[in-house]
């Protein structure tokens, strides 16, 4: 199990990356951490992987306290956001080095390497130097290496970045297998659809704090209301800027060719929105009222903004849907 309580991190430069993150990953559970760029996901995962210590807060990983990094390290399989490969070494040499770092006996290492190479589709690459690998192949190697010592708990930072759809599906299957064998799996991701399919529990992190947590379904329900998706004829950005000038009640987000409005009253709100769109001369091609997806959840809890503008969260409160249901507002 992985359990963290009130982790904070102030980097040496003074940057406050975490201001109190608590999370929990049980055995046989895949838990996801999502949040905008710079939210502090990697910082939290690095602390739990014993890369560096938190500024305050405590955590236990596989029953060992964070301060006892030496006991944690053999138990965890880690793949950080940087693949951390040596461009001058071949794939096979990476397996050899990794095995020696974890004290895996030579026979066992050779046997597991063969299996992992097969599973991660690396057969054509193991004898090439990693510097000649494509980005996705490097990612696959880094994921395979994390499993070489058959760790108890797994920590992956954005593991599926750069993977093609097939490799991604295979990796997700591997994760489910590990979960079913009873391993706790903690991962971060930017792919919300993936989080939705894979994770039993999610933490939405923003600006170094958990702003929402719960199962994907609970989180969608917590957003409440519905999403009103309008496909417009003109350039969607153009329409959005015209809307921004006139529409006071909640700005829509842009999703592909669509403007997505959050509505609470499903009878009156769509009418008002459509009327408003006609007023700003938007050509309406299609509209649909749908239940919110995880993208809506994400935007709802973290606000639509980039890392550089520390904007306002739509609600100044944290929603927690505790395991087993029941909402608590803080």
């Amino acid at each position, binding site marked *: 199990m992985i359990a963290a309580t009130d982790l904070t991190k102030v980097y040496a430069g003074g940057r406050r990356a975490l201001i109190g993150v608590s999370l929990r990953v049980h055995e046989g559970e895949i838990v996801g951490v999502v949040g905008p760029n710079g939210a502090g996901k990697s910082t939290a995962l690095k602390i739990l*992987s014993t890369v560096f210590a938190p500024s305050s807060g405590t955590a236990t990983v596989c029953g060992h306290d964070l301060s006892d990094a030496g006991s944690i390290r053999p138990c965890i399989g880690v793949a950080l956001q940087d693949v951390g490969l040596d461009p001058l070494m071949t794939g096979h040499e990476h397996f050899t080095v990794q095995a020696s770092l974890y004290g895996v006996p030579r026979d066992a290492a050779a046997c597991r390497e063969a299996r992992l190479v097969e599973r991660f589709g690396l057969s054509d690459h193991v004898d090439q130097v990693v510097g000649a690998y494509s980005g996705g192949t490097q990612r696959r190697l880094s994921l395979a290496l994390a499993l070489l010592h058959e760790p108890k708990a797994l920590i992956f930072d954005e593991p599926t970045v750069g993977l093609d759809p097939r490799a991604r599906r295979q990796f997700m299957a591997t994760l489910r297998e590990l979960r079913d064998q009873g391993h706790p799996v903690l991962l971060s991701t930017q792919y919300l659809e993936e989080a939705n399919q894979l994770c039993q529990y999610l933490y939405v992190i923003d600006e170094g704090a958990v702003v929402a947590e719960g199962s994907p379904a609970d989180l969608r329900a917590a957003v409440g209301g519905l999403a009103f998706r309008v496909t417009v004829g003109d350039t969607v950005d153009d329409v959005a800027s015209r809307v921004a000038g006139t529409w006071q009640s909640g700005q829509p987000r842009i999703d592909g060719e669509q403007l997505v409005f959050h509505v609470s009253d499903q009878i009156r709100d769509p009418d008002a929105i459509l009327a408003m769109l006609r007023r700003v001369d938007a050509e309406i091609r299609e509209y649909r009222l749908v239940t919110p997806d995880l993208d809506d959840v994400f935007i709802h809890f973290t606000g639509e903004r980039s890392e550089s503008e520390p904007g306002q969260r739509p609600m100044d409160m944290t929603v927690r849907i505790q395991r087993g249901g029941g909402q608590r507002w803080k």
Partner: protein
Amino acid sequence: MEVALVMYKRALREAKRIPITTVIIPLVLPLFMVTIFAHVFARITSVSGFRSGSQYVAYVAPATILMASMLGSATAAVSTAVEIQTGFFDRMRTSPAGAVPSMLARRFADATRLAVFAIILALVAWAEGMPISNWFLGLLVAAALAALWGLAYGGLALAACVRTGSAELANALLPLFFPILFMSTAFVPLPLLPHWLQGIARWNPASYIADAIRVALIQGRVDGGTIWRAALGIFCVALATQFLIWRAGQWLGRR
């Protein structure tokens, strides 16, 4: 132990894959010194202070060996900085073995290379006219002191690179070999140095290391007093740089 061996082999393999930085660059200047520079300044030995009848190439050969040691001892530091940048260092840190075996192995791989450099330079100096009376003893002392000095001195660049993760810093430290060797008896005997420099040269371990190598190569004997001082000097530098590396490592764990 197994991991240190794997890492040592890895470091040697890597040195072979990038020979320009690991072999050519550290050897060019010392080879130039022992072949051309030594002849340009050949007449310097007629000045009193040198042993009469000696050749400058024989005097300066240990200086070129030390120079190669100092120029070639930053490879561990540069490679470690690159590992910090690529994240390979964190891969090792999150493993039970940690990053220390790799750093140690890299330093010993550097030392191995420096021992070979010392032998190459001694051979070239011999071809240029330096007499070698006891081959085995001469090459052994030269190789051992060159390796140990590189190991100790290279720790400075390693500490700087671990602390900053920047390989440029190791390169910025390279010219430091210049004042260290010129403020020693590596290029000219003590009496020829300006008075104020003599004081520094007496405290400079490079003086004793160069002297010990010279005596071993030319006279084929081990001068107890000089060797002892050379070893003490190397030990003190090693202790100081090891402390800096340890501090830099502590810092990495807190970041």
